[in-house]
C-alpha cells in the first residue's frame, strides 16, 4: 500500500513536470525576439563584424540548438531532453549550461528563502499562538499586533522601503549585492559574516511580508483550539500552563499550519525573486529575471521547471510527514 502511494506520487510529480514544461515552453516563443541574434548583435556592434556575417552566425547557432526546426518538433525534442535530465544551455551565455546556472544561484536562494520562510513560520505561529492564549501576559499579546499590520503589504514594497531608508539614507546596511566588492568568496567565517550582513535587509523584507499571515491564521486557529474540550480537561487534570500550552494547544493548532507552510513556499518564491532582483542577489529569482529580459528561453524553462518541481516535491514530502504529526491521518 505504501509502495503504491509512492508510485502515485511519483506519477504526480512527472505530470507536474510535464504540465509546467509544456505551459512554459510556448509562452516565450510567442515573442519574435531571438536571444542568439541579440547576443551577436551586441558583439557585432562592438567587435565590428558585418551584418551578413551576423546572419550566418545566427543561422548556424540556431541550427546547432535546433531552433530552425518546426516548433512542435522542438517541443518534443525538449520534453525528450528533460526526460534525460538535460536542461540545455543558455542561449545568451553559452557555453554555460542551464544546470550550472541553477547550481550556482541555488545557495543564494536557499539561504534567503528558507531562512526567512522558517523564521517567519516560527515567529508568526508562536506570536499567533501566544496572542490567542487567554493566559498569556498582555504585553506579549500586544507584540503580535504590529506584525499583523504588515499582512498584505507586498514584501517588495517593504524591500524598497528598507533599502531606501536603512541602506541608502542611513547607510546602516549595504545597498544590495551578495557580498562586498573586492573580497573573494571562500569558506572563512569573515566571508560568511559579510554574506549574512548583505542578507539582513532582504530577509527582513521577506519575513515582515509573510509573518503577519501566520500570526493571523494561527491566532484564529488558537482561538478555536483553546475552547476544545481536551484543552479544558487538561486543566481539570491539574496540568501546569506550559504543558497545556505545548502538548494540548500548540500541537493541535499547528497541524493545519504545517500544510499551509508548503503552500506558502510557492508564493514566497515569487516574492523572493523580486526581492532578490532588487537587492542584486545572484539567486534563482535574479537569474530568472535576467533570462526573461533576454528571452533566454532555455534558462527560463529550466528555472521555472526547477522551482515547480521543488515546490511539488516539498508538498509531497509534507504529505508523507503529516501522519507523523497527526495520527488520525492514515495513508492508504
Amino acid at each position, binding site marked *: 500500500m505504501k509502495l503504491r502511494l509512492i508510485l502515485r506520487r511519483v506519477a504526480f510529480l512527472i505530470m507536474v513536470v510535464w504540465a509546467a514544461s509544456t505551459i512554459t515552453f510556448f509562452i516565450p516563443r510567442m515573442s519574435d525576439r531571438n536571444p542568439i541574434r541579440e547576443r551577436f548583435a551586441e558583439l557585432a556592434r562592438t567587435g565590428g563584424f558585418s551584418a551578413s556575417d551576423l546572419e550566418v552566425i545566427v543561422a548556424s547557432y540556431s541550427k546547432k540548438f535546433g531552433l530552425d526546426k518546426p516548433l512542435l518538433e522542438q517541443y518534443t525534442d525538449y520534453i525528450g531532453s528533460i526526460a534525460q535530465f538535460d536542461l540545455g544551455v543558455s542561449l545568451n551565455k553559452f557555453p554555460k549550461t542551464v544546470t550550472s546556472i541553477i547550481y550556482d544561484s541555488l545557495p543564494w536562494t536557499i539561504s534567503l528563502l528558507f531562512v526567512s520562510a522558517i523564521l517567519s513560520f516560527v515567529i508568526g505561529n508562536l506570536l499567533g499562538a501566544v496572542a490567542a492564549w487567554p493566559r498569556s501576559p498582555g504585553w506579549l499579546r500586544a507584540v503580535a499586533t504590529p506584525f499583523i499590520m504588515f499582512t498584505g503589504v507586498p514584501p517588495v514594497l517593504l524591500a524598497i522601503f528598507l533599502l531606501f531608508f536603512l541602506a541608502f539614507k542611513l547607510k546602516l546596511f549595504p545597498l544590495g549585492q551578495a557580498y562586498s566588492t573586492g573580497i573573494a568568496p571562500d569558506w572563512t567565517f569573515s566571508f560568511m559574516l559579510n554574506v549574512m550582513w548583505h542578507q539582513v535587509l532582504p530577509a527582513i523584507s521577506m519575513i515582515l511580508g509573510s509573518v503577519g499571515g501566520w500570526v493571523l491564521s494561527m491566532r484564529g486557529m488558537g482561538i478555536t483550539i483553546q475552547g*476544545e*474540550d*481536551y484543552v*479544558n*480537561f*487538561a*486543566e*481539570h*487534570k*491539574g*496540568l*501546569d500552563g506550559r*504543558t497545556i500550552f505545548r*502538548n*494540548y494547544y500548540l*500541537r*493541535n493548532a499547528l*497541524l493545519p499550519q504545517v500544510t499551509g507552510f508548503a503552500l506558502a513556499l510557492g508564493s514566497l518564491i515569487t516574492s523572493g525573486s523580486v526581492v532578490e532582483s532588487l537587492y542584486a542577489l545572484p539567486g534563482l529569482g535574479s537569474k530568472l529575471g535576467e533570462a526573461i529580459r533576454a528571452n533566454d528561453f532555455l534558462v527560463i524553462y529550466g528555472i521555472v521547471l526547477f522551482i515547480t518541481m521543488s515546490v511539488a516535491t516539498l508538498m509531497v514530502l509534507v504529505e508523507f510527514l503529516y501522519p507523523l*504529526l*497527526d*495520527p*488520525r491521518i492514515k495513508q492508504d
Partner: protein
Amino acid sequence: MTPILQIRDLQVSYYTDLGRATALNRVNLDLNAGEKLGLVGESGSGKSTMALAMMRMIKAPGRIESGSVTVGGVDLISLNDEEMRLARLSRIAYIPQGAMNSLNPVMRIGAQMVDAIKAHIPNMSKDDMTEQCMQSLESVDLKRNVFQMYAHELSGGMKQRVCIAIGILLKPQVIIADEPTSALDVVTQRQVMETIDRVQKEMGTAVILIGHDMGLMAQFVDKVAVMYAGRLTEVSTVRDMFSKPMHPYAQALIKSLPNLSNKGVFQGIAGLAPSLLRIPNGCAFHPRCPQAMDVCKTTVPDVKEYEGNRLVACHLYTEGA
C-alpha cells in the same frame, strides 16, 4: 463523621452583556466519603456551574462570588492558584460533560495519563507511572494496550472509560461526573455506570453524578439533589425522593417520569424555566408552582432539614408550623 465534602454558601455569577446572571445561589451541600449523590435539574439550572465552581474552573465572564468548598478539611476556594492546580485530580476530580472530545487527538492515551501524574508527582519513576496508568485502565475494564492507542481508535464508551480512568488516577476524595453517559447508547450507559459504581465502592470516594436521566440515576446513587434556577430545592435519599418527594418542583419532576400508569408518556412541567437574569422574587419556582402561596412571591424559602435528613426549601412545610 465529618463529611468529606462541605459546600457552604457557594455563589457564582456570569457577567453577561445583558447583566449579571446568578447561576449558583447560596448552595449548601454535605457529602460523606463513599456516598453517591445524583444532581438533577433542567438544562441551564446550574449543574455544570456547580461542578466547575467546585473545581474552581469557572471562566470569565463567570466568577465565584463567595462561599467555600471544603474537601477533606481543606477549603479549595481559599487556596492559591498553584495549590488549587495540585488539588485538581488529586483531591477532587472532574469527568467532563462531552468526554467524546476530551482526549487530545494527537497524543497517545498513555501520554495524556502520564502528563496528569507528572503534574502532581514529578519525581515518580517512568515505569511506576506507566504501571499506575495501566492499572487505572484495567480498573475501568479497559485493556492495558489502550495505553498505546489514540482517541480515534476508541469507541465512545471506551473514551468515556478512559476519562474515568484519568479521573481516578490519583484516587481523589471527591469525583464529579458530568453527564457521563449522555452520549452513549443504553447498554453502554449501564456498563459505564456499573464501572463507576464498582470503582467508587473500591476506593470509597464520594461521587457526584450529574444527569437528566432520573431513572438511570435512581439505580446508582444514594441521594438525589434537585437544582432549580441555581438553587438546591431538595436533597433526599433516592427512596424518599421517589416515594414522597416534598418540594413541588421535585414532585413535578418525579411525576413527569414515564412509568406504567401513564403508559410511558413523558409529561413536561408546565411553564418555562426562568431566565437567570430575571429570577423571580421569592421562590424562583412560584410562577410554575401549583401550590404557590402569597409568601412565595416575596420571600425566598430557606433550606430546612426534615425527617430522614431531608433538606427542602419550600414554604409549604414551614408556614403551618
